[in-house]
């Protein structure tokens, strides 16, 4: 682990960028979704306004809530911040990246999921436990699929460290490996499920029968809800950046070229902008699934990722 001054700079820049830009990405996706659905779009800064509003509201905590309930929003925020710090977004020279490779990153998301599910069970309302159950259902299906999708990349790059994966992928001779295509589709499905996007969950409703993420945060208000919302936008940001790093790793600065960071930021913004539009497109084009269909949807992702691994073993190894 060589900690250099540029490394620390890149690391701080990444964290600051993630914290500042994550709500913006959410606003961008919401705006495009509205446009595609022929609604008048909210301003790009809407998520910031929501955060500001929540930071000015009273926080009501249920009488029976334990310390776990009050701690969880900060744990979520902490986990997602660390996730954004590990994923190479503008540089691969990240001191924190050695602390957690792809497997540990999946573990980090699982840690956050466990906390949010437990916090939802803490109050003991019907909605909370229902949300927790559904979140864990999606989690146990999505987690192996995500791992398998990441493994396809690590088999190609012979590394599970995200920074090394990006370094190798952006320098390889072959442009498209078939196994990566499978992994990409699997990863997209998992990202939709994990970020509570449309075919699996609808972030815009509070309909009892369908909500998952909203059921988990139902009891939160004020600053706790603000942290939860911020953490959710950080999660979307982290997932988008993992996808970009694995499948479109161009433009990310490397150890020996700190100046490339100057170009990395616009490249990232450009890629995220396109990714956001695509996400809005997927969400508009698909209908929300019944909860019983979600396991099949995620099992498809799991199988696709495993097929990706097998394709790698058969054709590319």
């Amino acid at each position: 682990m060589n900690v250099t001054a540029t490394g620390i700079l890149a690391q701080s820049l990444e964290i600051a960028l993630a914290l500042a830009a994550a709500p913006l990405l959410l606003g961008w996706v919401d705006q495009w979704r509205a446009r595609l659905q022929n609604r008048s779009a909210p301003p790009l800064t809407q998520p910031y306004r929501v955060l500001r509003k929540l930071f000015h509201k009273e926080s009501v905590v249920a009488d029976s809530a334990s310390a776990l309930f009050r701690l969880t929003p900060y744990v979520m925020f902490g986990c997602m911040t660390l996730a954004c710090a590990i994923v190479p977004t503008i540089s691969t020279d990240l001191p924190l990246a050695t602390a957690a490779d792809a497997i540990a990153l999946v573990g980090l998301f699982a840690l956050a999921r466990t906390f949010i599910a437990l916090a939802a069970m803490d109050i003991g309302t019907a909605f909370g436990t229902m949300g927790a159950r559904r979140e864990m259902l999606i989690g146990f299906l999505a987690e192996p699929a995500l791992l398998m999708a990441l493994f396809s990349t690590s088999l190609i790059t012979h590394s599970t460290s995200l920074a090394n994966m990006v370094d190798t992928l952006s320098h390889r001779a072959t442009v498209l490996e078939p196994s990566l295509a499978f992994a990409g589709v699997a990863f997209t499905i998992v990202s939709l499920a994990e970020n509570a996007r449309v075919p699996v969950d609808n972030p815009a409703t509070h309909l009892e029968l369908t909500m998952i993420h909203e059921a988990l945060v139902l009891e939160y208000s004020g600053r706790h809800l603000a942290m939860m919302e911020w953490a959710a936008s950080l999660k979307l940001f982290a997932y988008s950046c993992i996808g970009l790093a694995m499948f479109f790793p161009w433009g990310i600065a490397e150890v020996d070229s700190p100046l490339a960071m100057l170009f990395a930021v616009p490249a990232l913004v450009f890629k995220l902008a396109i990714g956001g539009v695509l996400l809005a497109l997927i969400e508009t084009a698909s209908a929300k699934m019944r909860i019983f269909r979600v396991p099949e949807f995620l099992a498809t992702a799991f199988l696709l990722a495993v097929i990706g691994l097998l394709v790698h073993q058969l054709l590319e190894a």
Partner: protein
Amino acid sequence: MIHIDWILVIVAAWLVLGIWALFALHRTKFVARRLFPLGGLLGLALAGVALDALFSTAEVAQLLIGLPGLPMHLRLDALSAFFLVVIGAGVFGTSLFSAGYFRAGEGTAPGLLCLEYHVFLAAMAMVVLADDAYAFMVMWETMALSSFFLVTANHRVASVRQAAYLYLLLAHIGAVAILLCFGVMQANTGDYTFANLRAQQLSPMWLSIAFGFAVFGFGAKAGLVPVHVWLPEAHPAAPSPVSALLSAVMLKTAIYGLLRITFDLLHGGLWWWGAVLLALGLISALMGVVFSTVQTEMKRLLAYSSIENIGLIVAGLGLALIFRSYGMANLAALALTAAMVHVLAHAFFKSLLFLGTGAVLHATGERNLGKLGGLIRSMPWVAWLVFIGVLAGAGLPPLAGFVSEWLLLQSFLFTTALPNSFLDMLIPLVAAAVALCVALAGYAMVKFFGVIFLGQPREEKLLRAHDANVWQRLGLAWFAAGCLAMGLFPVPLIDAIDRVTNRLLGAGLAQAVHANGWVLLAPIGLERASYGPVVFLGGVGAGITLGLLIARRLYRGTLRRGEPWACGYAGGTARMQDTAEGFGQPIRQIFEPFFRITRDLPSPFDVRPHYRVLTQDRLWHGVYMPIARLVDWLARGVSWLQQGRISIYLMYSFLTLLIMLMLVRL
């Protein structure tokens, strides 16, 4: 010779404690508060001595107990020392907890229980030390019998007796298989010392037969599918400290036996042995975890989770065997290290969870998940300590369970160069199965913690539940600290395990790991993969602090306590929370073919409707019941011979005599 002598002294001291307890048969307070903590301290001493022995050379000794001319050979090498550390560490916490657990008037007298307990401990330690088949089998049987009596502590309950009987039955069938395994290995030399067994050159067929017996025998003890059925019955039946010892320590002696025989005495053997272990391990892991998510009784849930963890350990052993048979010692060392880390991690977090259920059981008298809930408010000590165990059990970073999971997945990932292309294809699928098991374990753990400790109390009396006493807290805290320490500092742990892998495989991870200091765990190379738990925890901690600072800086509102929101519905009661059945329902639906589900649905006209779902193991009805019926049928056939009339018995004697005479004449 110093270590092994000290260990024998400790074992003898345990026996003395046990006999002492016989003189204080009903003095619960003396037995619990004096003898159990003493036994625990001896356990700690054992762990310390064994840890020191791990880094020294092997030692041998002879005990002149037993048949004339047949002394017990003992040997303390790295493998034994590692498992002695597991035993000692597990015993220390469990004995401390027991000091606050056992009460008068519950089943077996406390003094007797104390004797059984310490005989059990001594037998486990001696199993690991044994260096000949005779000593091994005697100690193995002592362990089985003493644990049988511990399981039947509440012998007035019929279901406890049934469970214990099933345990005894399978333990003995397993023991017979182990005996046969030794019989095959000695190859007609008549010398049962391990040194001789190691020296034999058997043909591959006999080697494989010996391996088959060993897998069956030790599998029955470890709880591998399909010989796992005793485990979910016996663990809930036993008192909680005993369940903790059974699950955390005794199952590991079976892993020890499997390691000793396959890796040491049989020298690794053929590649398909590894494939067999891998398959058995994964099937057990998947079955175990799927069943654990649908359980409605807290200790059964944990018992099934033990099957899962043993399955993962055995899968690691299988992978190590495969690599070893292809001469890839470094990868074998990686897989074996993963399995060994999991042995220790599981010992700690499963003890913690089982002891936690013990505290809950004492405070509430309930073991049914459907009648618990909300205990984090009345039992904060137990809840928060168990929470650490839950996170470790779910395989989450930065705790102990994640280290082994991480190492295991790493060893699956970097296996692209196996000479067998069929295996090469299979390995990614296996990695997928491991990932699925670990994710499901998270589901089971959330269910366990959420239903017991979170939410609203489902019964009135839970509000009056008392927290654990000091002894219990000490025991729980020991295991929680272990889960944290192992998770945060895996490098020293791997140093210790390196001795074991060097002994068995001639390769280890210590050097590769040391190249990057103690902060980062990078078993293959820093560019391949690295994991730094301390930095990880620091990162999450810094993130949490940042969040708190931001909230403090930006927040303009106030905090108020109030009614839960629940979408504005005010009439919510504790009964509206998910029950344990409800929480397991998605799994029941997805994995339906795994279960034998009998549903009892009320008709619409029922005035007092009852809804009942019974989820059972298919193997029980598919394999065990037919065998039981067959035995029954045979027994009836035999009973036909016993007509109960003296003339018929005389006729049998006469016929026998006749046949004998004819045989003699021939």
